[in-house]
C-alpha cells in the first residue's frame, strides 16, 4: 500500500517536509504508524500521534485507501 501523508506541527519537522509518500505492508493505520516509526524513529518520542483521514480522526484499525487524505496529528496545542 502506498499513501500520501501530510504533516503539521512537530510531525512536519520530523519528516522535514509537509507531505511525503509512504509505502508500507498492510492496510491499516496501525501498519502505517509502524512503518513511519521505523523510517522516522522520532515519531515514537512524541506524547501522542493521531491520524486523520478526510478530516476525521480515525483509530488504528481503520483501513486506508490509496487516495485517502491522510494527516499526521501530533499533540495539539491550540488555545
Amino acid at each position, binding site marked *: 500500500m502506498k499513501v500520501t501523508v501530510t504533516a503539521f*506541527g512537530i510531525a512536519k519537522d520530523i519528516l522535514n517536509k509537509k507531505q511525503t509518500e509512504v509505502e508500507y505492508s498492510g492496510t491499516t493505520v496501525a501498519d502505517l504508524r509502524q512503518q513511519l516509526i521505523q523510517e522516522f524513529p522520532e515519531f515514537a518520542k*512524541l506524547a501522542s500521534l493521531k491520524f*486523520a483521514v478526510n478530516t476525521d480522526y480515525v483509530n488504528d484499525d481503520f483501513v486506508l485507501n490509496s487516495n485517502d487524505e491522510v494527516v499526521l*496529528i501530533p*499533540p495539539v496545542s*491550540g488555545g
Partner: protein
Amino acid sequence: MEQVYISTDRLSSQWCIDLVSDDGSGGLVMFIGNVRNQTKGKTVKYLDFEAYEPMAIKEMQKIADTAKDRWKLHKMVIHHRVGKVPIGEEAVIIACSSPHRKASFEACEYAIDTLKETVPIWKKEFFEDGEVWVSARP
C-alpha cells in the same frame, strides 16, 4: 454568522460579543486566551500557530454544536488566531449566551477544555535562544 472562525488577523472581542448578543439572554460569558510573555519562567518572544484548517473548523463546529445542545445556549462563537501572534494579543476567543449565567460559564469552560484536546491547531513558542512545539513531547 461566523460562528467558528480562523484568521491570521487580530481577533475582535467586540465582534464576538455582538455575534452572541441576544435579547433573550440574561448571561453572556467570554473566554479570551492571551499570549503570555513567559512560560515556566522563560521569556517568550511570540507564538506561531498552525492549523489543519478544514478539520479545525469542523472540530470547532462540533464543540459549538455540542455545547449549545447540552447547555441550551442561545449562541456560541469560537474564533482562533493562526500565524504569528505577539505577546498580549488574543490566541482564542470563545463567547456564548444563555438565559441564565450558569449555563454559559459551564459551556465556555467545556469549549476551551475540549478545543485544547481535539482541535488540530499547534503552537510554537519562540524564545531568545530557540523555539519549541508546545506539548509535543511527554
